[in-house]
């Protein structure tokens, strides 16, 4: 059943979601929120892939989405472990505390 939704609409949605994700990353200072926003961006990308896949009736879009999923999973797990460590060391989740890597 081919839905009558036009591709730009979906692309537009993905774009907006992506922008929201970026805004989230930039605005928030708490690392967790930044991680969340990254998740949003990942989903937006996934949406775009799937939309393109369905547009050309190719499975590639969905395969890419699956890869994105696996990547997201791995990334979140490592990210959260790091967050735990940071919390233990710095007792706060403020991103500006982590300034040691200065040039």
């Amino acid at each position, binding site marked *: 059943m081919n839905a009558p939704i036009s591709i730009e609409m979906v692309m537009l949605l993905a774009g907006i979601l992506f922008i929201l994700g*970026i805004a989230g*990353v*930039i605005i928030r200072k708490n690392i967790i929120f930044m991680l969340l926003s990254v998740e949003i961006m990942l989903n937006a990308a996934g949406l775009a892939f799937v939309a393109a896949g369905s547009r050309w009736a190719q499975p590639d879009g969905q395969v890419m989405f699956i890869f994105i999923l696996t990547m997201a999973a791995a990334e979140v797990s490592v990210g959260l472990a790091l967050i735990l460590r940071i919390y233990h060391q710095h007792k706060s989740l403020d*991103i*500006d505390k*982590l*300034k040691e*890597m*200065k*040039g």
Partner: protein
Amino acid sequence: MDYLLWLIPAFPLVGFIVLALLGKHLSRFWIAIIGAGSVSLSAILTFVIGFSFLSSTPTGGHYSQTLWTWLEVAAFNPKITLYLDALSLVFVFVITFIGALIHIYSVAFMAADKDYARFFACMNLFVFSMLLLVLADNLLLLYLGWEGVGLCSYLLIGFWYENPTNGYAARKAFIITRLGDTAMAIGLFVIFYQFGTLVIPDILALAPSTWHEGATIATVAALLLLAGGIGKSAQLPLQTWLPDAMAGPSPVSALIHAATMVTAGVYLIARMHVIFQLSPIVQMIVAGIGAATLLIAGFSALTQYDIKRVLAYSTISQIGYMFLALGLGAWTAAIFHFMIHAFFKALLFLAAGAVIEALNHEHNMFKMGGLKNKLPVIFWTFLIGSASLAALPIISAGFYSKDQILWYAWASEHGSPILWLIALLGAFITAAYTTRMMVLTFWGDAKTSVGHYPGKLMTIPLIVLAFFSLFAGFIELPHNFGQFTLFSNLLHQVLPETVLKAGIHGELLFQLLALLVTFGGIYLAYIFWYKQPQRIEKLKRSAPLMSLYRFWFSGWGFDQVYQVLFVKPIVFIANINKNDVVDKLYQGITTATVHLYRLLSFTQSGSLRWYIIGLVIGAILILSIQLML
């Protein structure tokens, strides 16, 4: 006899090498033997060769001996050849004869000095290079002698090197003469490219055919050679070094700065007379320079208090006479005046040296006096010398040589009344400052006691020179005293006769005028500095006269002008640019890279938010580019 020619310069060269290398180990006696002996040997040899030259003049009027080919590139192959003709014979005679006498004199004069060997080594080297200069057959060899002489004058002026002012005077002398030498070097290039060779006889032969009279190239070549001559003979604009050169020992001043080196310019112009004849303008310039220098130096000599500086300025003015004679085309008169001047000026310098040493190094004439009866020999020889310098008529030799120049200043083809008047005024001033010198040093009451009496070795040369200063003049009598012109007949083999204006007579009248002027000068100096010294005090009070006195005393301000014009700017530029502006350029590049590094490191500030914002800005930029395209 020409195969012996190379021995004349060889003796002093051997003397120099022996003294330079083994000087430290030889005893004073042996140093004196080698030093004075080598020059006397070459003097004797010169007599022998001179005698055989005069008795049987060789074919072509010259001896020449080629030692080896110095250099051979493309068409430029100067050889080391010694060339003796009448002109160089006179010069070689003067150099070796007076050189020998001065060496004998300095054996005693320098006895107390610790650097005995170095003194004689440099003196011998000087005599060698002067002989080379005079005997050279090509201009490159002449240039070698020319620079060698400059080097030795540098070494000998700065002989007492502890005192930095001597070092300064020596460097000043070398650099100013070097100015003239570079001009002469450029002259050599011009001549080489015109004639394809530097051998003097060929040049003199080719010149009239290659250049037409008054050609621009002839003028340029003559001017450049003249510049070389001016540098070495301390003529106007380049004469400031000679008065300072008196820092050297007196025998040095006698040999180098009176008899031989300073007349190298005269020799050069006389030797290359064909080129000067081809450009009358330059000949006029030579006469002009001669006249101007004799006046300027004369007036400056009048105001000096140091006895050696008076003699130095008088040397400049006498050489001015020689240049005047050369400018007028009176070649033989110039060379005759050169010979006579060498005799009495060397005598005056040596006597002055004796006086200075007697009064243990007192140079100021106003502190001397009353030496008439204390140092009788010195007094009489000094008197003869100054008589000859002042050109006392008939008895002194100076009269015959200077009178000729005065006569030719009026009568010769290029002569003119102004030049004659200037020469006459010069004669008057010469008489004045000579008597002033005599009166101040020998008459009046003794101001400093005589510490040390000159030995026999110093007085004999003085007497011999005094003899020549009196009787050397008789070999060339003026025309109206009977046709007895031995000297000019000899020189006319090489130098052309002087052309007189048509219908000129009354030489006697001019001689009488010159006589009157000389006696006037003597009387004036006698009055001012002996009879009524209070006149001087009166004159001293008037301010303008005093400023004139200071102006003359400083050698007409040339030194200050050169200091401001040339020395100060170069020293200023050098010191400012000490560490090399161009180096700054490269240091600039390095500092620029360091700043760039610092700028970039600022962007790695470590805060994640800054990186993400950077990401977003990057994205925006890319998209906007995408939009624009």
